[in-house]
């Protein structure tokens, strides 16, 4: 798995083993699991929610649900798929509540795209790490669906059948969505490259 490289811990146990130990009420195991997933869950949630404070609330809800529900992990999917499933549900729930508060009806991920951070500005974007800025800007131009599928497939490196289960879509849809997301991403990168060269 890809992202574990960023917050790798020395604990040799797998995510599934840590989850099982957390289910047996080992707070030490949960702390290791938490270190592995806190940033990943936050970034995944940020795919839909661009208000950092709200995304953080979703992370808190997700990780406490992981602790309290760890004993219920059946091991039929990757531990990461299970955790991202919880995060996705919590994030969409937060989006619905936010939309409801704004008197917006018929909310779905496809329709709402994401909750924008009102404080986000081009200047704030420019503060991001410069080496990856172009890619981040290109990603920001994609739909939430495309950003999500690229993250799950290319960053989390989940198997397509896990992604299909997580998103409740057929596996063939996962393949075509990855295909079109990549196409769109390449177009955006090309456009940004052209802008930079002019």
């Amino acid at each position: 798995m890809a992202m574990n490289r960023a917050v790798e811990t020395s604990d040799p146990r797998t995510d599934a083993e840590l989850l099982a130990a957390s289910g047996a009420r080992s707070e030490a195991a949960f702390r290791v699991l938490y270190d592995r997933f806190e940033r990943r869950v936050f970034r995944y949630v940020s795919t839909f929610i661009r208000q950092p404070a709200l995304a953080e609330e979703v992370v808190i809800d997700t990780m406490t649900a992981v602790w309290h529900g760890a004993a219920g992990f059946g091991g039929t999917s990757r531990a990461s798929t299970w955790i991202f499933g919880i995060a996705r549900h919590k994030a969409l729930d937060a989006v619905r509540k936010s939309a409801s508060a704004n008197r917006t009806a018929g909310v779905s991920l496809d329709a709402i795209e994401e909750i924008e951070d009102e404080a986000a500005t081009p200047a704030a974007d420019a503060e991001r790490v410069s080496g990856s800025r172009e890619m981040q800007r290109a990603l920001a131009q994609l739909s939430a669906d495309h950003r999500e599928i690229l993250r799950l497939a290319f960053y989390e490196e989940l198997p397509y059948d896990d992604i299909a289960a997580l998103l409740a879509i057929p596996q063939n849809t996962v393949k075509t969505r990855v295909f079109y997301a990549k196409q769109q991403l390449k177009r955006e990168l090309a456009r940004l490259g052209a802008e930079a060269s002019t």
Partner: protein
Amino acid sequence: MSVSGRQPHVAIDEYVTGALPPDEQRAVEAHIFECDECRAELEATRRLHARLQAALDDEPGPSERVRRDVFAQIAARPQASSAGVPAPDVANVAGAPGAPGGRDGEPTNVVRPSRWSRAPSLPRWAQLAAVVLIVVQAALLIRPLTEPAVPPDQVVPRGVGQAALHLRVVFNPAATDAQIRDVLRTLGARVVDGPSASGAYRLELQGADPKAVAAAIAAARAQQDVLQSVDAAP
């Protein structure tokens, strides 16, 4: 995506991320060896994959307060599962392998209290009164076993030559179990019936001195925090 804009002939995206099983990986490798178009696509996808990972690695994480809040919440309810409280059924996330989706494809990880952990529908005073009734009845059952044996010539048949006084009482909903027991002890009474539809209980005072009972009732009436009403019952 292929370099030409068409779908590649094999699962190059999954191959790059290592998501393919070994036999399919070998099949992709065999195909790439022969197909120039897919070999070019593989190189392009590898570059994109690396750039994407670097960019997403550089994204900011949450603030420190997230960790603090999570572990504070865990400390506040550390034994949720092991104490018999059902854990959230988070395994039933929509689309999770082997887990049915909820309504409209929503996850079904709704936490509902167990049937046995729901708050009882009876008011508190009724619960207390029921406890008192059980305690009194249990005491009456045990009493013959614990009382010292009485010589047969001293046995006086109960109910013969003894006046039984009955009272109808309504306990204050806020009264505690201990307060109710104190009142019953003071009156020398036991609960023989109730609660009625109006929440009243019937108490029986065996062989009590009428003057003493009257005084006890007056004293009980004064305890409005325990008794809402005390009346003589037929």
